[in-house]
């Protein structure tokens, strides 16, 4: 170390006089770090790529502060009793035991969430891909208008009002009115107050709302495919739209497919706002009760944040499992 410093001061005496104190310090320090990094290949790799790390620093600081730390904190809260006012009390695995053994409503919520997620997840995913794929072939201005049409529910946010109009319980609801007119039923069905119908309706609405973030991402992904591949494919004997889709389009946007899958998993497990808006909270016989509803019940109404954090952790683990599974499927695309 000392040798390096001496070398530095002897080789550039003229410039070091002109340099400010801070810059001289920085220069000496960087030579020290350079020397230090030469000893190990791992350190050397990090040192040589220091400009890349420097580019990552601002985001990573903010990310760890506002995302990692809160998540870790709520993991920890999952093992405590915490009612927001008092300091958290350590209870070990009790929250998790209660969740799986003493909470029948949680089991209902898990069942409902799984039904909704397993139906809306794959179908919504494919739907947003198909719509994005069809729109992609249109001319530019038409395309942006049609994209707006499909993305409108996400911007305008009035989606629920339309559906609660359609499934209103009196004869003025559109579904009831048409079914009576066609003679299928004789008196109005109370769609959203009947445990039999709530889950299917929630699934329909959720499917319809699935053209969100991953829809936009898929449009961007389709735009990122080089057009020459299609022409080359046509020369090489691709005959129809479906072969083109399977052998060219999908393999070339695999990374975006993975992105959308992650978003779709998160979205379909996090269903909650739709059920509350349609069927109220709590819904009749908990027919539309999802894990997120359960979480909000404990977190925002009963103020048992420890228990709510335990629920969140269970959900998180389920999402990670699903993610692993789906990555394995996507890897097979185009082979």
């Amino acid at each position: 170390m000392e040798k390096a410093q001496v070398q530095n001061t002897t080789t550039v005496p003229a410039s070091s006089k002109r340099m400010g104190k801070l810059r001289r310090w920085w220069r000496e320090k960087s030579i020290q770090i350079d020397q230090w990094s030469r000893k190990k290949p791992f350190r050397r790799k990090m040192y040589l790529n220091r400009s890349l790390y420097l580019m990552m620093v601002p985001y990573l600081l903010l990310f760890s502060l506002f995302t990692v730390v809160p998540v870790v904190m709520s993991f920890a809260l999952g093992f405590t009793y915490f009612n927001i006012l008092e300091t958290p009390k350590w209870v070990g695995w009790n929250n998790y035991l209660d969740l799986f053994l003493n909470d029948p409503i949680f089991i209902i919520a898990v069942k409902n969430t799984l039904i909704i997620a397993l139906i809306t997840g794959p179908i919504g995913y494919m739907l947003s891909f198909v719509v994005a794929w069809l729109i992609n072939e249109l001319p530019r201005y038409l395309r942006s208008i049609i994209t707006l049409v499909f993305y409108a529910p996400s911007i305008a946010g009035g989606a629920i009002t339309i559906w609660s109009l359609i499934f209103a319980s009196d004869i003025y609801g559109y579904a009831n009115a048409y079914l009576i007119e066609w003679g299928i039923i004789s008196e109005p069905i109370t769609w959203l107050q009947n445990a039999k119908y709530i889950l299917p309706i929630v699934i329909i609405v959720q499917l319809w709302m699935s053209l969100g973030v991953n829809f936009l991402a898929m449009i961007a992904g389709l735009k990122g495919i080089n057009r020459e591949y299609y022409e080359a494919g046509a020369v090489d004997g691709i005959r129809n739209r479906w072969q083109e889709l399977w052998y060219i389009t999908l393999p070339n946007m695999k990374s975006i497919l993975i992105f959308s899958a992650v978003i779709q998993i998160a979205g379909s497990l996090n269903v909650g706002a739709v059920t509350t808006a349609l069927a109220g909270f709590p819904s009749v016989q908990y027919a539309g009760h999802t894990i997120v509803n359960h979480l909000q019940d404990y977190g925002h109404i009963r103020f048992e944040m420890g228990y709510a954090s335990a629920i969140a952790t269970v959900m998180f683990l389920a999402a990670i499992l699903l993610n692993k599974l789906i990555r394995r499927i996507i890897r097979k695309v185009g082979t």
Partner: protein
Amino acid sequence: MAKRKLTYEEKIQEKLRKQEEKRMRRNERKARSIDSRPFAEISSFKIMIKSRRRKRVNRSRAGDIILFIVLGFAGILSVLPLVLIVSNAFKPLDEIFLYPPNFIVRNPTLNNFRDLGIVLATSLVPFSRYFFNTVMITIIGTVGHLIIASMCAYPLAKYKLPGNKFILTLITYSLMFPAAVTAIPHFLILNWFGLINTHWSIILPVIASSLGLYLMRQTMVNVPTSLLESAKLDGAGEFTIYRKIVMPLVKPASITLIILNFRSLWGAEGSVTIFSEQKKMLSYALSQIATAGPARQGTLAAVSLIMITVPIIMFIVSQNHMIDTMAHSGMK
């Protein structure tokens, strides 16, 4: 010299010349709008050839028709809420409370907007203040997230650095954690850093959100590595490569990112972390108007029309900039 009267032929020639000029200018503008990057001449020439070919290969008419009928049906359902918002803004009060509602207004009126004007003119804090707050937060948040997140996404996507895989796993999994639970730790952290009751309490969490970074990373993976290598041979530093080569190539993704962030920030109320009236957002101020009861429902309808207009214009403008990438056209 007195101005000579033009003869008929001269007039026609003048007209033709002007038309020709106009056409030239239009062509020029088109060529410029297609691409302003290096090799623009070559790539725009390619586009011209392609657009002359019009239709893509391998299409059957029957498939087209069936698929577009399905699309049309879904599209009509999707656009209904938007139609309702627009027509509500022009409805008189008695028509707003009609059940079931009319999707097309019967007696259009501008009363709602006049009422809104009166309410805003008498508000305690000048209305422009709210507007300024929202615009500032939206711009800083959107641009900040775009720059900072994409700057981090580039090394994550194109290099195998020690620690990269771990960071990426963290980011992916953080997307899946339900937000309802992290609200309290979030507030605590903002409080530790003294950010409560500042605009940073809204901007910083948006900049730190992992959705945009993950999108950018997944798009940048597809940028050809040979392009980066050739830039490095020409003596470009990492930051220059990121700014001059990678960012233009992932334009579709950055547009998507801008749309997503703009939408969420424009609607941000900030009612949890911001307490002083001077710093409140536009959407908070406008939602206050609606709390006065049924008499204000007309004003509320006008407000919601105004609030969605800006994101929609933004959406259309930015979607128009989405064009096919030229990532591979430079390499032969």
